[in-house]
């Protein structure tokens, strides 16, 4: 159904005045966001958006912005929110872009309707609905983009926190930092096992100095990793067990039998070297 109401007509015929009022509103609202977007850019964005909105509203039904015909408007707003996320805008600063359009549109409608107050309220309602939906869509995209950024940071952190280092020929070490959960253990396990295959290392040292707490779940993850390493044909030493953690493990009744544990990495390395038949003498 094509829109025949005078919302579309008003948008088209009074575009210049809507634009000038809107940019005024935007400039006032964006005083707090100064520096992140220039007045010129803002003006250009407003103009471009109004162009898209006007041309779309001439042919499309204004009550359903999820229709394919609204695609240009939606993608314009999506791009805008994404840009604003990257520029460090808050969600309300982003949403105000759409919501500040309300007043100019209402003014235009009022002038367009003349004396027809019934038609005016009807069209006002339509306009409110349309602008609210567009605003919500903007905020939604804003949040999605934010979440994307957070997700990317999480994976980066994950990769950063699990480096496998080669200490000696045939000896690998994995200094674990941060809380161990299932997802991290999986990644840690995979990267360690892969490295064992690549370097043909016989001994892997897992250092848990940087692990703040050990509960039954963490202990179970550690046991799994150790078992997987053993299945591959390498040995595993766990080092960096702090006194409190030793106490917790015993209190929890976790059975670490059959696993070599050492208080610190130096002891573990000494043992690993000994097992590989390497010895040092002091001069």
């Amino acid at each position, binding site marked *: 159904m094509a829109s025949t109401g005078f919302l579309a007509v008003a948008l088209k015929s009074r575009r210049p005045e809507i634009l000038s009022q809107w940019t005024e509103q935007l400039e006032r609202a964006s005083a707090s966001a100064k520096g992140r977007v220039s007045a010129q850019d803002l003006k250009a964005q407003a103009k471009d958006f109004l162009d898209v909105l006007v041309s779309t509203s001439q042919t499309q039904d204004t009550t359903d912005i999820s229709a394919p015909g609204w695609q240009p408007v939606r993608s314009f707003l999506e791009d805008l929110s994404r840009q604003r996320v990257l520029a460090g805008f808050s969600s309300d600063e982003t949403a105000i872009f759409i919501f500040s359009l309300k007043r100019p549109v209402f003014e235009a409608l009022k002038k367009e309707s003349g004396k027809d107050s019934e038609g005016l309220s009807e069209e006002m309602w339509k306009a409110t609905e349309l602008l609210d939906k567009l605003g919500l869509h903007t905020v939604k995209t804003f949040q999605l983009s934010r979440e994307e950024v957070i997700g990317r940071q999480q994976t980066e952190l994950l990769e950063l926190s699990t480096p496998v280092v080669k200490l000696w020929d045939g000896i690998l070490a994995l200094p674990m930092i941060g809380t161990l959960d299932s997802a991290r253990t*999986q990644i840690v*396990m*995979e990267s360690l*096992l*892969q490295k*064992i*295959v690549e370097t*043909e*290392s*016989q001994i892997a040292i897992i250092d848990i100095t940087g692990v703040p707490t050990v509960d039954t779940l963490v202990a179970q993850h550690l046991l*799994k990793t150790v*078992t*997987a*390493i*053993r*299945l*591959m*044909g*390498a040995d595993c030493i766990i080092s960096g067990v702090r006194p409190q953690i030793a106490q917790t493990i015993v209190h929890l009744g976790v059975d670490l039998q059959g696993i070599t544990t050492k208080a610190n990495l130096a002891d573990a390395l000494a043992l690993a070297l000994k097992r590989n038949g390497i010895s040092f003498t002091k001069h």
Partner: protein
Amino acid sequence: MDRIPILRMGEFLLVTIQVDMHDQLAMQLQDDLTRAIDKKGAKGVLIDISALEMVDSFIGRMIADISGMARILDARTVLVGMQPAVAITLVELGLSLPGVATALNVERGMVLLRRLLAESSGDDHFINR
């Protein structure tokens, strides 16, 4: 029907699994291997699974079983070249294969096998890895 070849190297048997194991093939291997240990009087079995990319609980248990059977027939088994994905799968399935000796590659496996045999002919303290 295809079979997994069992090669003889001195007093050892070498089994290289290079195809995807299905249950029938696994049973056949169990049968062939125990027979070969008996017939050839082998003292050690080296199973190379470096080409095996998928395991299920059945294959996992079969590997543990073979090791146990060989032990009864007085032969030691060393499992070599397990892929990381396979190791993780077995652990997640709860199959930690206790009592099965493992090594990173065939060469190391041979060294381990010789050591295990030397130890079991001497004192019995260090057999458990």
